[in-house]
């Protein structure tokens, strides 16, 4: 049909509009609470995107992604506090450290054929013993916490990220959109196709000439590296780091909810998932407060039930059916015309 609009073009327009809205709304609405919610939302969109690279595209389940957040956060914070090196340089060190950790875990797991759930257990184990190690690392504050100085001497808040929340909001927006575009570019390349082949059937992928080990390792390293900046932003936003939070297992689980709800293995799914889940969580908090219900755990229970309903009703996530309804494909699954 010639009249049908090109879904790729429509997708670009809608995504551009979406990005524009995210960029402009804080200018009109100066609300500290909304900005803080939006920061949380973008943070989860970004780490979800980075996690989805490994799980959604290469099919390797990591339940210890908080490790890369924590390593990124501590690396940049340590460089800043101990050596006076700013976050814009520190982030590269953070990326390198997280990539090395991803290479160690992926290298060990994939070399010895640790697959599926067992690989996921390995990722949890690494995150957990790193947490315990940091608890005893006095140079970085140990379990008592590691704190970044709040004072700022320079005139440019951007230079060492000593600025207002809005600065972090725009930083996260750039990070999230950049990650989206990067993932979109990578999955259109041979590596992205190899990831999907390995995800679908490892033996058939090998028989098609794909080096399965290298392909999976590339996913683990890239995913870890791309997660680390989220840790850096977290460290400079909150100005404090505790091993029990930075490496918390529940955080690893939280990180994967947005891509699961939005749609694993899609490009827009992790963003959409965060757009759905973060406000949902906040609304629950506000709603229960407004109703003056103070029952410990009730919010988590309601949130959990809502998650179960979403996953049961939309097992492939919210985005695939929504994309169809909007007449869009997702670049991850679209078949180009001849």
């Amino acid at each position, binding site marked *: 049909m010639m009249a049908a609009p090109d879904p790729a073009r429509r997708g670009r327009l809608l995504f551009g509009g979406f990005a524009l809205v995210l960029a402009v709304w804080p200018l009109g609405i100066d609300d500290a609470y909304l900005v803080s919610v939006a920061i949380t939302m973008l943070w989860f969109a970004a780490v979800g995107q980075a996690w989805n690279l490994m799980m959604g595209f290469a099919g390797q389940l990591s339940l210890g992604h908080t490790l890369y957040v924590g390593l990124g956060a501590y690396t940049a914070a340590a460089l800043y506090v101990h050596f006076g090196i700013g976050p814009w340089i520190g982030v590269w060190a953070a990326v390198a450290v997280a990539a090395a950790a991803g290479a160690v875990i992926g290298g060990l797991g994939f070399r010895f054929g640790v697959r599926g759930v067992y690989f996921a257990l390995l990722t949890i184990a690494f995150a957990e013993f790193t947490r315990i190690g940091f608890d005893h690392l006095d140079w970085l504050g140990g379990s008592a916490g590691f704190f970044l100085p709040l004072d700022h001497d320079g005139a440019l808040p951007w230079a060492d990220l000593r600025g207002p929340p809005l600065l972090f909001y725009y930083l996260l927006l750039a990070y999230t959109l950049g990650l989206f575009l990067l993932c979109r570019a990578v999955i*259109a*390349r*041979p590596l992205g*196709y*190899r990831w*999907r*082949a390995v995800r*679908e*059937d490892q*033996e*058939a*992928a*090998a*028989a*098609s*000439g*794909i*080096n*399965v080990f290298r392909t999976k390792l590339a996913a683990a390293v890239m995913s870890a590296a791309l997660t680390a900046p989220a840790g850096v932003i977290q460290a400079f936003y909150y100005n404090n780091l505790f091993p029990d939070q930075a490496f918390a297992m529940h955080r690893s689980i939280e990180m994967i909810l947005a891509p699961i709800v939005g749609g694993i*293995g899609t490009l827009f799914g992790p963003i959409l998932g965060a757009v759905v889940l973060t406000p949902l969580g906040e609304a629950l908090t506000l709603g229960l407060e407004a109703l003056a219900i103070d029952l410990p755990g009730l919010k988590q229970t309601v949130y959990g039930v809502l998650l179960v309903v979403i996953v049961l009703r939309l097992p492939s996530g919210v985005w695939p059916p929504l994309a169809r309804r909007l007449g869009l494909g997702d670049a991850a*699954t679209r*078949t*180009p015309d*001849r």
Partner: protein
Amino acid sequence: MTAGDPPLLAVEQVTKRFRGLTAVAEVSFTVPGGAIVALVGPNGAGKTTLFNMISGVFRPTVGAIRLDGRDLVGLDPARVCRLGVGRTFQLVRPFPALTVLDNVLIGGLVHGDGVAAARARAWHELDRLGLAGLAARLAASLTLPERKLLELARALATGPRLLLLDEVLAGLRPTEVDQLVAVLRGLNQALGITILMVEHVMRAVMALSDRVVVLDHGVKIADGAPATVVADPRVIESYLGVEEP
């Protein structure tokens, strides 16, 4: 064939033992370039084990497997594929959640010249096998014959010199068998692709193959022209079945 002109594939005294069980015992045979050779035998004869050794999934306990004189033993499946051995699986294994086009495109990536070139190669193979109309469908939605063709297209996109087909005709209707036999003959004649096939459909074996190698309990019991092999009393006894008097 002279001594200086090695066969495309040479299986030399290959043995595979799984713990105590000997699946393949001292099997030797060759596949000359350009030939179609069928590997037949009852279930459990060691045919698929032999395929898995040639394609690098298993390492032979003893013996050598040479492609154009080069020993393949110890190479992983990806390397074997890159050296020009394409394969299909007995239980078809397309990439289910990917489109037909992307399935074949992935095979075409092995040449290392990028996605666009691999996509062009994929369209070429889809056209050749009559699958172009299904290009945008997910592999999981195909019928069994379609999935078999898809796997063949994916293997062809890797540009094989030797194609290993593991029961590619099993489960097909007679008319579908005839169509695929014609396709295979075309690949062999037009492209010069050498084929080693594990096959139970004797009608196709007789129609297609230049040579038949018969395995029984891991041992080679016959190796020769199809007409000679099916007349061999040992083959009749072990595989084709003894006629009641």
